[in-house]
């Protein structure tokens, strides 16, 4: 699979996929009008990755997610959780600024819901 880089726009995050490291990352803000249409190719890519026994790392560095985006991430985490339950190592690195409790809480909520995924919380100091 080849590397992917989608640049951020004012409403969508930067997305990167590094094939050699099986690493996906999201960074910025996410509030597209039609979240499903933006994220569909990414969800499909993750579904393909989860068809084989691949360890995966997903990094999140998002400061704002609208409810549609949260729905997409929930969907994504559900797929990843099932992948982890089958014995694959799935690590989610949840980055948040250390004064941003609300973003941290969103990560904690996901951690609670999807317990087979290994969550690493990574506070960022300015």
């Amino acid at each position, binding site marked *: 699979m080849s590397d992917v880089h989608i640049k951020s726009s004012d409403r969508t995050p930067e997305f990167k996929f590094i094939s050699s490291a099986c690493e996906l990352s999201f960074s910025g803000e996410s509030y597209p009008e039609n979240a499903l249409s933006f994220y*569909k190719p990414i969800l499909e890519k993750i579904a393909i990755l989860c068809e084989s026994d691949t360890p995966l790392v997903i990094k999140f560095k998002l400061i704002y997610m*609208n409810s*549609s985006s949260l729905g997409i991430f929930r969907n994504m985490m559900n797929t990843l959780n099932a992948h982890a339950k089958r014995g694959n190592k799935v690590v989610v690195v949840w980055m948040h600024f250390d004064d941003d409790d609300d973003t941290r809480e969103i990560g904690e909520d996901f951690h609670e819901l999807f317990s087979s995924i290994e969550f690493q919380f990574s506070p960022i100091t300015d």
Partner: protein
Amino acid sequence: MHKLLERQLRKYLKGESPEELMPFLGAVDAAYCDLDHDKKFIENTLEISLKELDALNANLQSKQKELQSALNVILDSIDYATRLQQGQLPDIHKVKSRFSQLEVYWQPRDQIGGDFWWVSPVGPSGKFNIIAVDCTGHGVPGAMLALLASNLLGQIYSIDVDFEPVEVLMKLDELMRLGLNQKIDGSIGNDGCDAAIVQIDPNSHTIIYSGCGIDLYEIGRSGIVQRHNSSNISLGYPVLPSKAPEQIIINLEPDQVFLMSSDGILDQIGISPLGRKMSFGSTRFKIALENTLRRDCQELIENIIQEMNVWRGREQVRDDQMILAFAPLTL
């Protein structure tokens, strides 16, 4: 000979053309004729360009009129939808008497949206419910979901007006999932809602709260603000909730005020003192409540909105905004 050259010869050489100057004058004559020719060519080209520009301009103006017309149709449609959505919200004047205080701030991002509030009928027991719902999306899709959710609430309470909040939330989850055709397995559906319900029992001097994604803030007589966290459950989505939402009973005391806010205000992006984009957050929300002098619902809401707008600065409004603030009747 070129007319201009003739005039110049008459003026400067008294009309005489010395033999030795003829080759030179011939060259000047040819140059003048070439210039004339070029000038005419440029004029013609300019004329054609101007004509083309005019045609292009006329075309653009016509397209602009079409676009404006299409936009007006859409805006008219949204205006109509706004009236429909506002008509579906409770009439605050009709329900205010059930409370000691009730104030609502409802501000969709795009005139219509996915946030709405609802009050159930009063049952024979005297109990009734005040409900805040935040559906996925905003604008037209948000409003469509809001319509579905509010209809479902009506349906649920028509079965039993005294259903407890947790029961209503579970039923709303199931019915919304069905209503959106979002089956559990293999569906890529992405729509649902957050909701919180407060059931008020005037006879027992208690309220029961259960929330999925919408917290309940309580301000006691002492002015201390307590945040009752909602359950980490989203309603209506294909991913089935792993547990039932929590439910708590709160004893009513005099001068208590309660607030529920959809995430539009809590998540509003602004610029932090360190110059970084960041959401308003539940901590700043709580501080705004604590800094409000009186436990007056209108003042509380105004203070939150003011603090949020100062925080927001020039950043766009990200989402629909809604705050319910109420104080139950105390005997």
